[in-house]
């Protein structure tokens, strides 16, 4: 394939990882073809125009100052950051069963949740200890990895957490950080994820942390601008079915045709990669029996104005009951509308996704009105179900369950002949984030160039 016209590469997946890798390879003289199953680029980034010229992020949204590769790519593409708005008091609705005691059902305002501070601190001290102990580049080599990999986060909570407030808060924290139900992830994965994202404090924080900024105008523009530069090399509506290799080349088969190249870069979540027919077959699959979909449904409630701000509230809330386990003010800087984003995660995401659109809107707006009684009826409601999206199979990222890291970790980035792996789940730094996707693309470009 690398005859007169130089080497060639087929990239599967037009998310941030795939398009960054394609751009890098094209810059080094590769003839690239990007195959994307959807009729849009962006992968787990997607923009919704909530009002004329005012975009909100239906998928990945946030970044912080440690996300250096994303910031560099944004600068190259002429994109800017906009700070997340977190002025004012938070709202907490943490009574798991308010009907049992209506007096406690009221929401609370403030900086701190109305829970036992020492009990929560004990929980976070334990998580910090696990996080510090994990091997950041090779979690399966962590001391005591076998035990930590066998245990789910739910098992761990059952064994370690005595105080009811810690037991209440742990799944909410886990849902917010990873979109996981505690039964879905191993403790090793939880510790790895926290470490990979910069530690407990950084990953959790807005100001000074991983949620400090958004991309002005929407995160979807990263992929749109990359795709614009690649032009007709990006082919939409081409779901990949098979990847076959012979002595001379790799052939990527889609529903509409075949693409032969020197190398293929698969920039897909692991559960999607495993649905492809590989010949020869993969010696180790990309996902395990217990690898689960990230359980996230994102809801955007649109109001004429962000009225909560007039009441000294930030729009941020943490809730023991669903569907919206947390809310945040995602009002675009452009225009006047107020956008309250609700995160439906873990087991709640499964329940919520099964409702009709009408039921979803009713449930979300009703809960928002309980949290923020000053709210009028929303003028619009957008629900993005990543959990059941056939071309993402979950969001924020794949959830590694018991045994997964031990089995899958050692071959996470090992090429399969001419097939190389990218995607945020192949980056041990900032796993699950846009930053991880870009870092995986840079690694894969270096790998391909090193083939010689």
């Amino acid at each position: 394939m690398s005859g007169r016209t130089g080497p060639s590469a087929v990239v599967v997946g037009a998310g941030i990882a795939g398009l960054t890798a394609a751009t890098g390879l094209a810059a080094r003289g590769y003839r690239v073809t990007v195959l994307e199953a959807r009729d849009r680029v962006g992968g787990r980034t997607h923009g919704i125009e909530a009002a004329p010229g005012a975009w909100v992020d239906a998928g990945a949204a946030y970044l912080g100052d440690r996300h250096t590769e994303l910031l560099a790519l944004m600068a190259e593409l002429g994109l800017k950051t906009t700070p997340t708005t977190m002025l004012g008091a938070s709202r907490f609705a943490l009574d798991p069963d308010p009907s049992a005691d209506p007096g406690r059902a009221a929401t609370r305002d403030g900086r701190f949740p109305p829970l036992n501070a020492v009990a929560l601190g004990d929980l976070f001290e334990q998580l910090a200890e696990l996080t510090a102990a994990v091997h950041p580049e090779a979690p399966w080599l962590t001391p005591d990895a076998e035990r930590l990999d066998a245990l789910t986060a739910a098992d761990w909570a059952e064994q370690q957490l005595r105080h009811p407030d810690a037991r209440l808060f742990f799944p909410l924290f886990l849902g917010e950080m990873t979109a996981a139900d505690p039964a879905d992830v191993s403790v090793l994965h939880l510790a790895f994820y926290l470490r990979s994202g910069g530690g407990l404090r950084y990953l959790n924080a807005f100001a000074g942390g991983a949620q400090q900024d958004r991309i002005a105008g929407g995160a979807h523009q990263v992929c749109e601008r990359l795709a614009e530069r690649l032009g007709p090399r990006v082919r939409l509506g081409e779901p990949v079915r098979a990847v076959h290799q012979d002595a001379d080349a790799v052939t990527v088969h889609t529903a509409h045709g075949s693409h032969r190249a020197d190398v293929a870069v698969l920039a897909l979540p692991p559960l999607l990669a495993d649905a492809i027919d590989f010949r020869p077959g993969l010696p180790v699959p990309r996902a395990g029996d217990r690898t689960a979909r990230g359980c996230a449904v994102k809801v955007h409630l649109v109001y004429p104005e962000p009225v909560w701000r007039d009441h000294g509230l930030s729009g941020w809330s943490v809730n023991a009951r669903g569907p919206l386990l947390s809310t945040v003010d995602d009002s675009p800087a452009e225009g006047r509308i107020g956008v309250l984003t609700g995160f439906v995660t873990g087991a709640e995401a499964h329940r919520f996704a099964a409702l009709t659109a009408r039921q979803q809107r009713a449930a979300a707006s009703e809960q928002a009105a309980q949290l923020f009684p000053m709210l009028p009826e929303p003028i619009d409601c957008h629900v993005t179900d990543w959990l059941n999206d056939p071309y993402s199979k979950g969001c924020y990222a794949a959830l590694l369950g018991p045994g997964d890291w031990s089995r899958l970790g050692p071959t996470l980035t090992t090429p399969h002949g001419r097939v190389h792996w990218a995607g945020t789940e192949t980056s041990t730094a900032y796993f699950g984030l846009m930053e991880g996707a870009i870092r995986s693309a840079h690694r894969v470009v270096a790998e391909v160039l090193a083939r010689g």
Partner: protein
Amino acid sequence: MSTDLTTTATPEALVAVFRRVLEREDVTADSDFFELGGDSLVATRVLSAVARDHGVELTFEEFLQATTPAGLAQRITATG
């Protein structure tokens, strides 16, 4: 058990706690927790450490009135 705990907290001991949980070295006895980038999650870790090291369980509200290592040490000693 209580003989292992000391309710006489020194500012230096609290400086060490702040440095550990805030992951920064530039903490002095008079540094303010929130100005150093502390938030509610990190605050709970300070209060957990105080309970463990000094046997004093403080609430969020009590912490808000003593957000420097020196102030917190004084508060612990007064409470204990």
